[in-house]
């Protein structure tokens, strides 16, 4: 049986893992390579690395992190952050990543998503959507949440799939870093309208939160960051909790 995936996410800035709350107040969370190896050993099903470096130097460092991670672990991983051309995509896939996560660039120029899918196949293209509640629905934010758009998150999710996204990574900006649980309504709404796998993100604090994202939010995978980085919960604890709740996991 196909299992639900647990995906630790590492935000990387200038070669170090960092984590903030609601996209702000970054604090250091360790060496990405060490964390990647640890998570892989602990049973992570995939990993996501997001480059949040602002400088060109930081981006170079990031690419070498990707290369080293690819040599160190034997599980799939996705890379995102600042990817805006097909050349950028090929560079990270050549470095050993399996998928790319596209966010701001596809909002600014949606055709880029079609080009990406044509170049490397939908299975390697994840559309990342940062959603924020506004007047009873969700709008899309870009540039790390800093900039509003007029896009409706649910409609945009459907469009990304039409344009070739093979998977969606949906982050609730309202929940991100709060550890108060995922935005289940957001997840459920999008999951019901797209035919591709959905990764839930933003708000994980307890094993129950992750399980609910699957059972109530209908997500295929759950992503979390801080609960793993600071040893608050182990991946194994979460998987055991899920299995006890009849969610199929790889154990």
């Amino acid at each position, binding site marked *: 049986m196909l*299992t639900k995936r647990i995906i630790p996410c590492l935000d990387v800035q200038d070669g170090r893992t960092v984590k903030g709350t609601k996209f702000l107040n970054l604090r250091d969370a360790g060496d990405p390579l060490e964390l990647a190896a640890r998570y892989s050993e602990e049973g992570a099903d995939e990993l996501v690395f997001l480059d949040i470096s602002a400088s060109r130097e930081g981006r170079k460092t990031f690419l070498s992190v990707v290369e080293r991670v*690819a040599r160190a672990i*034997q599980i799939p991983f996705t890379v995102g952050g600042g990817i805006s051309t097909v050349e950028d995509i090929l560079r990270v896939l050549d470095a*050993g990543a*399996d998928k790319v996560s596209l966010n701001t660039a596809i909002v600014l120029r949606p055709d880029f998503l079609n080009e990406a899918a044509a170049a490397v196949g939908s299975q390697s293209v994840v559309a990342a959507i940062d959603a924020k509640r506004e007047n009873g629905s969700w709008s899309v934010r870009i540039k790390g949440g800093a900039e509003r758009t007029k896009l409706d998150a649910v409609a945009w999710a459907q469009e990304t799939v039409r344009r070739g996204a*093979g998977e969606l990574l949906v982050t609730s900006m309202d929940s991100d870093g709060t550890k108060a649980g995922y935005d289940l309504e957001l997840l459920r709404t999008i999951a019901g309208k797209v035919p591709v796998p959905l990764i839930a993100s933003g708000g994980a604090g307890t094993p129950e939160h992750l399980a609910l994202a699957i059972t109530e939010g209908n997500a*295929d995978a759950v992503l979390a960051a801080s609960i793993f980085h600071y040893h608050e919960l182990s991946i194994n604890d979460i998987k055991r909790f899920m299995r006890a709740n009849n969610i199929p996991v790889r154990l």
Partner: protein
Amino acid sequence: MIGIINYGAGNIRSVSNALDRLGAAYFVSSNIDELRQAQKLILPGVGEARSAMESLDRGGLVEWLRTVDVPFLGICIGMQILFERSTERDTTCLGVIPGIVSKFDTSKGKVPHMGWNTVEVRRESLLFNGIRNNEFFYFVHSYSAPVGPATTGLTEYHHPFSAAVQHGNFYGVQFHTEKSGRAGLQILQNFIERC
């Protein structure tokens, strides 16, 4: 020496990283004369059958691949094109194994089949030496190969399909063995040491 066939459609890096981990000697090439020297061949793959076949054809590799007599391992698309045909843009494949590769039915659930799923060992194969039955492997694919006499490993998603095949010296795995943790490495090691 293992020859990794580079046809511009594979995740060569993932496979070569895995072989590095196993300490295996290999080279990467798209040149038929170089590849003829290999004692074993690996055809990695992501993407789609049509572009894979076209690019093998451009390299003049298709006829040769049909007749290679060294152990051959096709991964993902590399396994699918061992079959006769793929409904992916109605592509004629290598035809080493009878059967037609077809798309998952999107009305039955999400496509691609993406993530870790179990593989039931259906038939003795050197590739599965030391692998427990129903071990997890990582899959990403939208098309699946039928179950037949060549099937050595079976997985269910929407329907049962061939997760692993063997026909003589031709081995294939639908899952990304190079990305399937320790069990995945074991499969590669089996191919290197036992096949």
